[in-house]
């Protein structure tokens, strides 16, 4: 520094013109040193100063120190904020001039560190000197100016630089502090604002209260401790509570809350209140108007002041009953819906648009044997039968693209791999924009239907084949004569449609000449049900009429009603033609024609053929020579030749007419069946002279017969395949047919079983009965309907239903019996197990050691078990219906009957205590008879089931117990008198003492001279007062101990407690017990016997006092407190005694249980009886500290039971 100063001085010396004044120089340096020292001391003055203060101090110091014309400092305190500036201006300049000049210069903002300039101020130009404050991060700068031309001198620069550094250091410290302070100020401002708002809101609170009062919801406020301080009219009107009541304590309003919700409400409430947080709870509250509970949402929010202090809670109670019920209904409906979906007899699922399963019902899971998760993510195609898949895919694709419902029948694979037929229906669910959102799918199992359909189709096809192969026109007709089914031959013959044929009356299918007759015959048959048999002509397709024999028979149901007509029309045209030809020939050929049929021949008596008609020869394609003699035999079918020859020879030998059939080869090699008939011509002596024979072409008939046989085979097949055993017998019962099933079942052959052989398959136990039944039926001709067991081929017997009906001819004579055996083993076994179960149940009811009975829904007794009958000694028929009244004591009958009648009407459970006759000792005993209705699904009574329980002994013991309790109560009174003797003596002695003393004083005053009359009067008055007091004591004692009657009155438990405290006070004091009372101001009155309750209190006080006898290390404190808890008035008796072992809490109330050496153990037991007879309860609990609390509470609306005296 010295060097620098020296150099400066040298420079200075060089710069200035005048000679160096050493003394002046020394003075200047000294001044500089002083200035530096002063600058270095500045931070001490800046301690705890704010930046503005620091800058002001800096400016003031330097202005004085350096005799400046102005000093300006600017510091940026906070980026974005206005910089802090201090300007000091000395004479002769004005602030405005300096500011203008500075602004111009500072605009340039381009200076070195430090920088100097000269600026014009007013008329004068003066030097400016600028130094930055802060080196690393510049905070601002200072500018100093002086009119002195030498400014700034070296020493002045030094002082300004050091001052700038000192200011920088001080500002670094002061800025954060300043920041904090500013924030604190801002906070203060906000708080003030909040406070203002609170104040304003308080001003508005009156308005708010008005508003709240008239809100259409229950609104309320709570003090921070939870006590309501405002409740609007809505709640008060709803609950019927008064404002005073609600305000009386925090939980008063909860008396309106449903008992089931109260604990939850209380918990929420206190959680909210104690934590100071918002709370909400849903409860049911009682509407005073109609006594119904409605759901409410109670919610409250805490209201706090600016400092966060809890001011109060503001709450509302909103009626949400309708929403709740709607929710409940929705839930029920959803449940129902789910139940419905799960009980739909089909598989139900929903799929998304891509066909992936979303939701499904139980049946679907069970069918596919997969879990819900497995099925989701599964595709329907995974379950479809491969053969059906192409069609399913096609239909599904079509549905997806068009959105039309999907309805396809296909097979789905079940869990066990078996495919079953399903009808699958799906409907699309569309979005708002019409795109498909998903599908609802229903799969219905139609396997059975499919099978049945197929069987039906097969059966129809079979029948159709039969019909179509019958060589005739076969048709079925409705009972009214409309054509139903017509065989193929109809169409072929007539060359018409079935419709045209069915409409035969109006078309030309029947020859016009025959039509009216046919209609008449047809109509008659339909009307009378007699079979139709007519011949008429049908128009063939080629326009030729041919004769047909038409036969129609009706089929009837079990009720003999015609269900259908079956018709067969056989072409008999040829036959008729032949007949006509014969007749013509007859006419022509007289005798021969009369004897010889169309195809005719004759033989000699030995059979040698000597004539064959042309017809015969033409047919066979033989010449007469080729056929004559025995040669015609070559035209006979080889299979028939032997039989025919044998027959012919036999007839020749015996002379009997020939009647046989055989096939004759036609000229074209085709064999046709012929009927061979021949009669011998005898001479007068009876000798055969000739045989005349005919051959009638019966090929058509044969064909028909064959068809018929085929039919018969079918029938037999049907009979053999129908799922039952079938048989037929002759009118005498001789079995001539048994179907294959019958034989298969029994393992018997047809030979073994026919006739009466079948009976070996009948169970030995059943055979005799069955045979007798069968013989009766045969004799009477009535239908058979009987059950018996049949032995299966494997030896197992199964139950069968035997049914048979006779077939009668027109005269009513039985032609045949047709019968079936139906396997009813399953049903029989089910019946048997049911019977066994019933038997078991009966056994149970007959063996359990209870008396049981049942009644029909109308109340008529229909069953009494043996035990009940044994007990009463009555017979079942004496008790049934309303005979039960005979069992009861005459005095009880009326009441019991009335109650029973009411129960039967309403379905309410029946329970009466009645005296029932007991036969063993010929007395009536007390029994409880009760019954409950058994309801069906619709809730109708199906049955009443009841019991009778003998409770005579129990009832007697109850009576005895009551007597014992009563006796004990008397004992306790006596004991209490004994225990209270000292107290009584004291209570009486005190006023007596006063009386005697006052009386003595009075006498003395009167005897004095002069007599002190005023004093005597006063003492006499005191005598009277003390006498009254003594009388009061006596009266109180008398009511407490001489009591006989129960006297129910409105009792103030506070008052009762005060009286007992007064009575016991002396003894308690003697035991050094400090008595404290906390009696609730608004304790409701209760109904009860005041004296009984006082005995309880007395007992509890004495126990408390006794429990504290041994306590010497703490005050013997007895606190008697009363309180309201909901509807109950409660009395707490709390002591600081030895307490009791928690293990014996309940035993404390047992009779003869005592922890005291001299106790009897009846006090608490009786006290509890008394309290419970008031509908209340008495309990004991340990204290948090030493001692115990006994308490009892009694409902305000209690009704005293008069069973404890």
């Amino acid at each position, binding site marked *: 520094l010295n060097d620098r100063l020296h150099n400066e001085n040298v420079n200075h010396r060089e710069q200035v013109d005048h000679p160096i004044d050493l003394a002046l120089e020394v003075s200047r340096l000294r001044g500089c040193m002083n200035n530096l020292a002063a600058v270095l001391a500045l931070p001490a003055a800046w301690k705890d100063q704010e930046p503005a203060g620091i800058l002001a101090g800096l400016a003031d110091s330097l202005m004085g120190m350096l005799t400046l014309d102005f000093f300006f400092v600017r510091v940026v305190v906070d980026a974005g904020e206005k910089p802090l500036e201090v300007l000091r201006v000395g004479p002769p300049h004005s602030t405005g001039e300096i500011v203008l000049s500075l602004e111009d210069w500072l605009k340039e903002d381009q200076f070195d560190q430090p920088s100097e300039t000269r600026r014009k101020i007013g008329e004068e130009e003066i030097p400016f000197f600028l130094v930055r404050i802060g080196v690393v991060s510049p905070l601002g700068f200072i500018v100093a100016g002086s009119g002195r031309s030498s400014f700034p001198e070296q020493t002045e620069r030094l002082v300004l630089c050091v001052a700038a550094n000192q200011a920088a250091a001080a500002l670094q410290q002061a800025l954060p502090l300043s920041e904090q302070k500013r924030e604190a100020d801002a906070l203060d401002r906000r708080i003030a604002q909040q406070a203002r708002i609170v104040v304003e809101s308080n001003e508005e609170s009156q308005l708010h209260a008005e508003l709240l009062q008239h809100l259409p919801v229950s609104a309320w406020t709570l003090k921070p401790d939870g006590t309501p301080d405002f409740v609007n009219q809505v709640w008060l009107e709803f609950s019927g509570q008064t404002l005073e009541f609600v305000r009386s304590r925090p939980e008063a309003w909860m008396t309106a809350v449903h008992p089931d919700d109260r604990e939850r409400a209380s918990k929420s409430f206190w959680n909210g209140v104690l934590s100071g947080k918002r709370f909400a709870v849903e409860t049911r509250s009682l509407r005073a108007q109609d006594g119904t509970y409605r759901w409410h949402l109670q919610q409250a929010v805490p209201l706090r002041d600016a400092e966060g202090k809890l001011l109060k809670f503001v709450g509302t109670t909103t009626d949400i009953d309708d929403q709740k019920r709607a929710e409940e209904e929705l839930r029920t409906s959803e449940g129902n819906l789910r139940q419905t979906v799960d009980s739909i007899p089909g598989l139900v699922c929903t799929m998304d648009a891509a066909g992936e399963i979303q939701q499904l019902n139980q049946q679907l899971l069970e069918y596919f044997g997969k879990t819900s998760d497995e099925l989701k993510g599964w595709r329907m195609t995974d379950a479809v039968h491969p053969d059906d898949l192409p069609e399913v895919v096609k239909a599904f694709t079509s549905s997806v693209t068009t959105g039309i419902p999907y309805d396809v029948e296909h097979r789905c694979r079940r869990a066990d791999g078996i495919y079953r037929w399903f009808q699958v229906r799906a409907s699309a669910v569309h979005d708002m924009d019409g795109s498909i959102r998903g599908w609802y799918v229903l799969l219905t199992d139609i396997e059975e239907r499919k099978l049945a359909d197929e069987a039906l189709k097969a059966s129809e096809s079979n029948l159709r084949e039969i019909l179509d192969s019958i060589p005739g026109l076969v048709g079925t007709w409705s009972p009214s004569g409309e054509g139903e089914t017509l065989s193929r031959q109809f169409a072929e013959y007539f060359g018409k449609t079935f419709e045209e044929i069915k409409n035969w009356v109006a078309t030309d299918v029947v020859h016009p000449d025959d039509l009216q007759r046919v209609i008449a015959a047809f109509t008659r048959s339909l009307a009378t049900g007699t079979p139709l048999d007519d011949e008429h002509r049908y128009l063939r397709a080629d326009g030729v009429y041919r004769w047909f024999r038409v036969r129609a028979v009706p089929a009837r149901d079990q009720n003999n009603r015609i269900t259908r007509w079956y018709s067969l029309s056989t072409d008999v045209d040829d036959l008729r033609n032949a007949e006509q030809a014969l007749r013509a020939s007859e006419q022509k050929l007289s005798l021969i024609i009369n004897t010889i049929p169309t195809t005719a021949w004759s033989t000699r008596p030995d059979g040698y053929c000597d004539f064959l008609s042309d017809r015969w020869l033409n047919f066979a394609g033989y010449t007469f020579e080729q056929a004559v003699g025995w040669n015609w035999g070559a035209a006979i079918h080889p299979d028939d030749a032997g039989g025919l020859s044998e027959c012919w020879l036999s007839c020749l030998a015996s002379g009997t007419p020939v009647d046989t059939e055989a096939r004759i080869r036609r000229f074209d090699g085709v064999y046709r069946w012929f009927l061979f008939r021949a009669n011998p011509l005898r001479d007068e002596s009876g000798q055969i002279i000739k045989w005349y024979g005919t051959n009638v072409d019966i090929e058509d008939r044969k064909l028909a017969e064959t068809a018929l046989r085929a039919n018969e085979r079918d029938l037999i097949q049907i009979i053999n395949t129908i799922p039952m055993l079938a048989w037929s017998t002759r009118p005498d019962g001789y079995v001539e047919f048994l179907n294959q099933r019958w034989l298969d079942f029994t393992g018997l052959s047809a030979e073994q079983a026919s006739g009466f052989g079948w009976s070996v398959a009948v169970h030995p136990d059943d055979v005799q009965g069955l045979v007798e039944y069968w013989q009766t039926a045969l004799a009477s001709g009535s239908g058979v309907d009987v059950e018996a067991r049949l032995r299966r081929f494997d030896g197992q017997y199964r139950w069968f239903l035997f049914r048979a009906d006779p077939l009668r001819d027109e005269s009513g004579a039985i032609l045949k019996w047709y019968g079936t055996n139906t396997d009813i083993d399953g049903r029989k076994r089910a019946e048997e197990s049911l019977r066994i179960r019933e038997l078991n149940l009966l056994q149970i009811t007959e063996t359990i050691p209870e008396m049981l009975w049942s009644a029909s829904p109308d109340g008529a007794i229909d069953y009494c078990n043996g035990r009940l009958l044994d007990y009463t000694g009555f017979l079942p028929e004496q008790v049934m219906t309303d005979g039960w009244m005979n069992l009861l004591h005459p005095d009880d009958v009326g009441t019991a009957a009335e109650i029973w009648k009411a129960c039967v009407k309403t379905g309410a459970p029946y329970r009466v205590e009645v005296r029932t006759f007991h036969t063993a000792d010929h007395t009536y005993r007390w029994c409880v008879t009760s019954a409950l209705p058994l309801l069906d699904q619709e809730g109708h009574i199906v049955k009443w089931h009841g019991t009778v329980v003998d409770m005579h002994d129990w009832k007697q013991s109850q009576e005895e117990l009551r007597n014992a309790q009563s006796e004990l109560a008397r004992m306790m009174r006596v004991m209490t008198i004994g225990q209270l003797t000292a107290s009584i003596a004291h209570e009486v*002695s005190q006023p007596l003492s*006063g009386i*005697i*003393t006052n009386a003595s004083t009075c006498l003395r005053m009167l005897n004095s001279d002069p007599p002190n009359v005023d*004093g005597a009067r006063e003492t006499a008055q005191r005598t009277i007062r003390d006498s009254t007091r003594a009388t009061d004591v006596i009266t109180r004692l008398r009511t407490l101990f001489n009591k006989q009657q129960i006297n129910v009155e409105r009792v103030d438990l506070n008052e009762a407690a005060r009286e007992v405290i007064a009575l016991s006070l002396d003894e308690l004091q003697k035991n050094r017990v400090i008595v404290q009372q906390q009696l609730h101001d608004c304790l409701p009155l209760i109904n009860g016997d005041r004296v009984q309750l006082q005995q309880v209190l007395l007992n509890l006080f004495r126990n408390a006092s006794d429990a504290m006898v041994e306590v010497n290390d703490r005050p013997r404190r007895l606190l008697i407190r009363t309180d309201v808890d909901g509807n109950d008035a409660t009395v707490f008796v709390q002591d600081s005694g030895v307490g009791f072992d928690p293990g014996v809490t309940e035993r404390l109330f047992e009779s003869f249980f005592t922890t005291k050496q001299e106790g009897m153990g009846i006090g608490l037991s009786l006290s509890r009886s008394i309290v419970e007879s008031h509908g209340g309860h008495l309990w004991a609990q340990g204290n948090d500290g030493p001692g115990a609390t006994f308490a009892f509470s009694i409902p305000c609306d209690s009704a005293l039971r008069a069973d404890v005296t």
Partner: protein
Amino acid sequence: MTEARLLVSIVDDDESVRESLPDLLAELGYAARAFSSAEEFLESGMVSQADCLILDITMSGMSGPELHRELKRRGVQTPVIFITAHQDEATRKETIEQGAVDCLLKPFTDTALLRALSAALRAN
């Protein structure tokens, strides 16, 4: 100038006693002061001024015998007559043994009281 009367202090929590007994004592020629509890008496500043004390045995707070013991502890030798409404012979005996002049059972006659007072004053 009247002869200075002997002062009898009565301590009893029963108001009727505090009313009636001073009047009787006045009639009998004594000056009397009544206190409602032992504590009131001890704080009255008149502990050692009485010529005789009549103390109730059973009182809320400090009992009569306890007060008697406390007085003896403080060196106060004033004769004591106990009065009590309890027929409790054991307590009565105990008080006599501890130095009481007499123990009167309420109600007592003026004669009995006079006799006890005379005995007490003799003892003093």
